[in-house]
């Protein structure tokens, strides 16, 4: 690594987040609510089982036919008057957006919610080029005002409570008076943004499903800001990852149903917006131009692995993070990844390098709650194990980015010793003898050992009553005074 930019690390960020009781309370409350609402909407287990199997099969069928479906989508869109462009990297995608905006002299842009645009860091990029790019989803608007990134893919401002938002609005919005009333706060945002929709020269959105059969871009939302961004300004630019395509229009309803129920526990969202073209002949409104930018950014590499390609089934509902005991405690920012939580733990290491982000593949207890909640059956825990292996040893024919680069010297040394001890009876006995007789004088700060017994490192900063419990539960394991071999020999069992 050396001169390369230092890789983000989950562990210290998570330790910091754990010490913030306000943050933890905000997440705990939100995740409990989301889990309860989702459970109520999937009350019929047979329906959940069948619908999930259908959703998984649709996504899997899409991935199996990805190149053909993308070509079909492109030609259908072109036939409908939507201009399609491709980008391999986020830099290329940013440049394409800028080129379209510059050609129209656009300097004011309103945005609907788009995780791909977060991958691109599009707002920063456009601002550097003198273009105002304003988030219009209420949650995204809040965090943009505060110079933050989303902490959840569906509820981007979930880490903030109403007092924090009230004070933010009071500081940053000129005409706003201080209020903690949610309706009034929403009203303030409505007034500001309505003007912005009116003035904007271009609108940018993501895509939830792109239908190859008809060349239709589907957008799921509750607020109406997505419709405002895609129908009011004269230019609409839609951004999608290559995996967002589906084969047929009839594939959409089951996925849409799984998405809204899993994400927010809604039977249906307020709006389901299907865009199949720019303003048509005789139409009185709608954008004159619609552009679609199809971004790869590492996805085609993921799709080449039969097992890991399941990562690309994801429909971005966020249920995995809502159900994750780790995410609920540390929040989204600790992951330092555009996609936090379980899906981020498998996606980000594959797009940024499993060596560089091996912190993420280990940020899991492998409890499997994520996979159980996933509406398209992504075996997240299994993929985490596979990526842990890839981080340490590149498997044969592996196409995983950065495979083998996540090896730890101490861990390798420990396993080398383990292996040696288990191949030589004499050495094994010696290690057993030493461990039972001298373990009490080993410093607990030794590498590996400290991660195992590290109460001192991680429990700092906890309230005293919690610290006591933690100490009791995390007592360092101590070997017995004599080895099992010695004990069984003593009672006369032949230890051959």
């Amino acid at each position, binding site marked *: 690594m050396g001169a390369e930019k230092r890789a983000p690390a989950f562990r210290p960020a998570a330790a910091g987040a754990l010490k913030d009781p306000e943050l933890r309370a905000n997440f705990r409350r939100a995740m409990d609510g989301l889990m309860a609402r989702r459970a109520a909407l999937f009350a019929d287990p047979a329906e959940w089982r069948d619908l999930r199997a259908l959703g998984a099969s649709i996504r899997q069928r899409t991935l199996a036919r990805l190149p053909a479906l993308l070509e079909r989508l492109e030609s259908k869109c072109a036939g409908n008057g939507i201009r399609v462009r491709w980008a391999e990297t986020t830099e290329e995608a940013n440049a394409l957006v800028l080129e379209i905006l510059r050609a129209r002299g656009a300097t004011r842009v309103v945005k609907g919610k788009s995780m791909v645009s977060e991958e691109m860091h599009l707002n920063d990029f456009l601002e550097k080029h003198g273009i105002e790019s304003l988030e219009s989803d209420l949650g995204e608007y809040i965090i943009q005002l505060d110079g933050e990134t989303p902490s959840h893919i569906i509820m981007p401002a979930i880490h903030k409570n109403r007092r924090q938002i009230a004070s933010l609005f009071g500081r940053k919005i000129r005409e706003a008076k201080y209020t903690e009333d949610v309706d009034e706060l929403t009203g303030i945002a409505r007034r500001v943004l309505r003007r912005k929709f009116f003035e904007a020269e271009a609108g940018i959105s993501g895509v939830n499903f792109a239908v190859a059969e008809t060349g239709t871009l589907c957008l799921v939302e509750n607020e109406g800001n997505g419709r405002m961004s895609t129908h009011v300004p004269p230019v609409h630019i839609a951004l999608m990852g290559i995996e967002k395509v589906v084969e047929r229009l009839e594939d959409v309803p089951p996925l849409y149903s799984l998405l809204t129920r899993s994400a927010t526990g809604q039977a249906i969202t307020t*709006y389901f917006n299907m865009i199949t073209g720019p303003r048509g002949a005789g*139409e009185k*409104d709608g954008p004159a131009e619609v552009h679609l930018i199809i971004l790869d950014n590492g996805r085609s590499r993921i799709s080449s692995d039969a097992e890991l390609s399941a990562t690309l089934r994801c429909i971005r509902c966020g249920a995995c993070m809502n159900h994750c005991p780790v995410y609920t405690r540390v929040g989204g920012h600790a992951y330092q990844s555009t996609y936090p939580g379980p899906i981020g733990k498998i996606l980000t290491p594959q797009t940024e390098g499993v060596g560089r982000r091996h912190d993420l593949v280990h940020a899991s207890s492998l409890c499997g709650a994520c996979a159980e909640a996933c509406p398209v059956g992504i075996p997240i825990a299994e993929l985490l194990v596979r990526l842990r292996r890839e981080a340490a040893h590149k498997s044969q024919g592996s196409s995983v980015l950065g495979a083998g680069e996540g090896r730890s010297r101490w861990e390798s040394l420990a396993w080398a010793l383990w292996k040696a001890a288990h191949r030589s009876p004499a050495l094994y006995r010696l290690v057993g003898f030493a461990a039972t007789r001298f373990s009490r004088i080993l410093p607990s700060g030794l590498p590996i050992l400290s991660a195992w017994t590290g109460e001192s490192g991680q429990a700092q900063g906890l309230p005293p009553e919690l610290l006591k419990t933690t100490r009791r539960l995390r007592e360092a394991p101590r070997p017995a005074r004599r080895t099992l071999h010695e004990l069984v020999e003593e009672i006369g069992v032949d230890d051959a």
Partner: protein
Amino acid sequence: MPEGARERILGRLRRAPGAEASPSDFGVMERKAWPAAERYPRLKRMMESVKTEFLEATEQSWPQAIFGFLQSQGLSTLLFGPGTAAGGRLSESWPSGDGALLVPYDRPVEEMKERLFDEVDAGFTTTRGGIAETGGLILWPSPEEPRLLSLVPPVHLALLYTDEIYDTFWQALRSQGWAGGMPPNALLVSGPSKTADIEQTLAYGVHGPRRLIVVAVLRGPL
């Protein structure tokens, strides 16, 4: 476009062994069905739970019902598409004198954007039916009925015939043959605009209409 990005992406995808396809069983979608008489009450219950309001009327009375509603709510302008059959009914039977003014959306938005954003109180659209499973209306904007009619005015009134309610979204798009030709914009709407982005607390009327009124024309088995 970046030189060859398309070919390189597609090339990588074609070379990849990738995922294996499994057949899709749509049985779970087919099983979702309700008797005709239950569809409207279900749709109504689902949509009322997200704060949609209902104005029930007959084939004869619905224009009057809208006029009376606007008057009772103190709403003074109604934007509508004059080119549809329903739009025609509305303007023919609209009482003159006191009461809300009918404003036709009959020119490009560029010529009436200020008025649309700042002056119009309500917008009227037809629907292509509704969805019983989840609640929801099918909207099909057209040259006669522009897209922003159902989005920019603070109140949206939508005309629904209660015998045009499908079991599911899936059934609706198959029965109406959507795959054969989609309009530039089509949408489902289930309620007034809403958000829960602040502390998961529901707030209505964030960017789109603050109120959605379904003008339900009662027909068929009820």
